[in-house]
């Protein structure tokens, strides 16, 4: 869906057209959930956060003036709600999350016959290691990593979402990547690093 379609839907949704808002939800909820999930590291809490983000977005949609894209605006709400969840939660010392356990049943996906099973195993191990490390870095670092590397957003969008200057996004991203590297610990070997 292109931005002009969004504009039409947003205008209708701002006039309390729930159906139009539902279409915006249809378009964006996978992205919203993925962001919340990567930030929080817990499927149930991410589900709650996504619900809450949409309720907040719907009730404050009249304040959206189109200075940014709708998705940037929504990202901001999702990130804020997710960070709220993390702040509210009595945090466990470490939120471990294995790729194979991530959604319960990733490991038994029907194998692609053309794929190299050994390479597939190694890829999964590396992904699991990165996800574990991602859950060990600070919330601020994780937010910038999720938005830049996982969601592929531009510096400017991230600056708008996090409400920080552009320079801060760049320096924070660098620090976050170094922190992620440190958080890998023994798993660094999987990446060919001694």
């Amino acid at each position, binding site marked *: 869906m292109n931005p002009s379609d969004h504009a039409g839907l947003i205008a209708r949704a701002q006039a309390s057209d*729930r*159906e139009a808002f*539902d279409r915006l939800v*249809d378009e964006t*909820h*996978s992205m919203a*959930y*993925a962001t919340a*999930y990567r930030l929080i590291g817990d*499927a149930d809490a*991410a*589900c709650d956060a*996504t*619900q*809450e983000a*949409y*309720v907040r*977005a719907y*009730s*404050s949609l009249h*304040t*959206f003036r*189109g*200075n*940014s894209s709708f998705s*940037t*605006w929504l990202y*901001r*709400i999702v990130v*804020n*709600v997710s*960070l709220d969840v993390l*702040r*509210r939660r009595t945090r466990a010392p470490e939120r471990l999350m294995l790729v194979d356990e*991530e*959604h*319960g*049943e990733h*490991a*038994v*996906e*029907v194998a692609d016959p053309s794929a190299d099973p050994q390479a597939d195993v190694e890829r999964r191990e590396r*992904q699991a290691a*990165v*996800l574990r490390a*991602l859950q060990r870095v600070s919330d601020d670092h994780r937010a910038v990593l999720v938005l830049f*590397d*996982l969601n*592929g957003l531009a510096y400017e969008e991230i600056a*708008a*979402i996090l*409400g920080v200057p552009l320079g801060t996004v760049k320096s924070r*991203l*660098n620090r976050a*990547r*170094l922190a992620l*590297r440190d958080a*890998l610990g023994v798993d660094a070997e999987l*990446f060919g*690093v001694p």
Partner: protein
Amino acid sequence: MDCNAVLDRLTLVAEGDLPAEEMLIARAHLADCGSCGAAYRELLRLSSELRELPPPPPPPDLRARIALALNASEAARRRDAARSPWEVFGPYLAAAAVVAIAFGLTTLLSRPRDGGRVARAPATMARPPEPVKGAAQLPAAEGAVPPSADATTPPGPTPDDRSRLAVEAANRRIREFQEREAMKSRDGEALWPSDLEPGREGSAPNGSGAPPGTRPGTFATPPLGGEPSVQPPKAPTQIDVNFRPPDQPLVGVGVYGVVEVAARDSLPRVVVTAGGDEGLAINKPEGMLYVGPLKAGETLRIPVPMTASKAGLHEIGIRVESDAPGGTTDLKAFVPNFRTSDAPKPVAPAGPADRPVNLVFKNASVRQALLDIAKQAGLRLEMAEGLGAERTSQDVRGVPARAALRAVAETGGYQVDEVGEVFRVTRTARPNP
């Protein structure tokens, strides 16, 4: 440029975001310095690894959960709007009056006998009074997001009690549904609570009961949001629900019934769920069949995928919820004549599509699962590029290939049509909003 300066710029080097001269110096350092070079390479690999992580698939019921939370939030707003100003502001005015009286008393007592000086007003008067415990909440200023929630002044992370309450209300309803299911499978008793049995009056918390003229199977239940409405419902929304059982139901085989839903008034959002008795599984997560709009005069026809584990008569409950007053309808229906596959079968020419497949899918892509079924049964499958990225978990061992294809396709929102010998997979047509 020393090691620290280079480490500070690794991302800028990686993203090509340094002025040319600085870039040259940094690159030269990375080539010469073993530890900085290793850190740089590691960062690149990590970054690439992050970018390749597959997005976590949203839970199948997420969309419905969002819809229920939005419904609950809208219902709460409508309730607030329906309250008289005294109901909403009364407790605050009362609290203000108490403070004012206390202040007057304080002023009176602290006034010097000569009356020459007036005691200074307590600083607390500048603050609004705290809400009285248990009193009605003031309507939140449009959620937790500040009034100018935009890119320039975006919504802050202020906790929003209202949105959280809406989420809790939605999740409570889902939990209740799951508990009903669990109870049903434990003791095989009634599908719905006894006060919602067909033929009895509804149990709307406002005490209105079933509205006059309500036909059996239609109940006046509270609007979505779960809380009793302050105002008695207006003319209840009439939702007609019909169920057509599968034509030739076989035990252990995925078959389809159809639920038909129509309403007198247009409804922006209805949620249709189904649950079977202990021997009848509805093959949809949480029994969620449909979330979407319903136009006045339009009849939604929604397939109900189900599998029976024993022969004979089965019971099915269909619930259609909307956030209109009295807009929830329960229907209890029967699915007769489930037969075991050993029993005389209805006429069906045996072909490759009738051969059972032996496959189990766990979080596989719908596309891959359909291809596997077609491959095992020797069927020709036609599916447009880009379709079938959704995830599915299905056990189709012993299920005829045709039924297996349909069951898997259904989980991703697709339908399978037979065109000659080709099984064509297309998106299930949604009602035109």
